[in-house]
């Protein structure tokens, strides 16, 4: 039992490192889309590992932790998608300031004609 708890503690430690990674990503990335990239992925895995670790230390808690994990796996990417769509709608460009790759622009034009841009609400 003790061994399992120690393994769980290390798994939780790994999870918290991923959470820290997400935080650093949100801190460092230059624009909102990229912040979202690190924010979504790293927090999902980090919390998954954290829950697995807690579940190893307390084996009778598996049910609720599993429910939490499933719930996070459905909702977290979905909220990221909705947020990305909203950002795109209000006209945030996904490109960095310096880079103007012509090839990238080609594919973007299809997207940018997708919706009219009226980004004055925010």
């Amino acid at each position, binding site marked *: 039992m003790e061994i399992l708890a120690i393994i769980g503690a290390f798994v939780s430690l790994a999870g918290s490192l991923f959470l820290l990674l997400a935080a650093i990503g949100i801190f460092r990335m230059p624009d909102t889309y990229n912040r979202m990239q690190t924010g979504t992925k790293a927090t999902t895995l980090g919390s998954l590992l954290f829950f697995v670790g807690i579940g190893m230390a307390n084996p009778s808690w598996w049910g609720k932790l599993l429910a939490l994990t499933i719930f996070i796996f*459905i*909702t977290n990417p*979905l909220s990221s*998608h*909705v947020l990305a*769509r909203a950002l795109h*709608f209000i006209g945030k460009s996904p490109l960095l300031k310096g880079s103007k790759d012509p090839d990238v622009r080609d594919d973007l034009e299809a997207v940018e004609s997708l919706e009219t841009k009226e980004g004055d609400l925010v």
Partner: protein
Amino acid sequence: MIKRFIIVLALAAIAVGLYPLAWGIQDAEILTEVANEYVENGADDLGAANLVTSVVVSYRGLDTLGEITVLFAATAGVTMLFAARKPKKSGQKGSLADDSRRTGSELLQTGADFLFPILWMFGMYIFVHGHLTPGGGFQGGVVLASAVLLLLFADSDRKMGHTLLQIAEALSGAAYVAVGLLGLWFAAGFLDPRFLAAGEFGQLFSAGAIPVIYALIGIKVGAELTGIVDTMRRSAL
């Protein structure tokens, strides 16, 4: 400038007045007399594992009844304040009625459809287990309301049947009072849950009528909060 000075002065006075309250205090070692009574006898008395639930539903049940009345009054007030304005017909000059709202993405709609029954079941889980876990009628009602909200977010043109809401609200309110009266007739007093068998402590079917009362509160709170939010959504100015 002098106004701001007076404000700072007033806040400083409040802070100085509160200072001894916060500073000298230590962690209490013993409960107050009333709380001690509840903690010592609450579990044997009512059979509910969650003492907060015992207090909310039974010991201070009348408070909760009044509180639900306040909630109802607030819902009525919000409806009145918004419904005084007739929504303009779309197409009229200068109106930005519902038709200019953007519908949610297809994925959000699918996700909302998929999550809706699960969230309702989760809400029911919360208010049925009100006497065993930290949940309860208010939290469960909010979860029900937020499931409906998710549908409204996904599709902003969705029409909601307010008749159904009102029926649910009225029925659960009436049933709440009826259960209270049953307590008056078959047990010690109004809202006394002991007219049903106490059951085995810690199981789902225990604590007399507390799960029933909390479920009714949950349905009522859910209907009222849904009503508030949907009124604020529908009223195109």
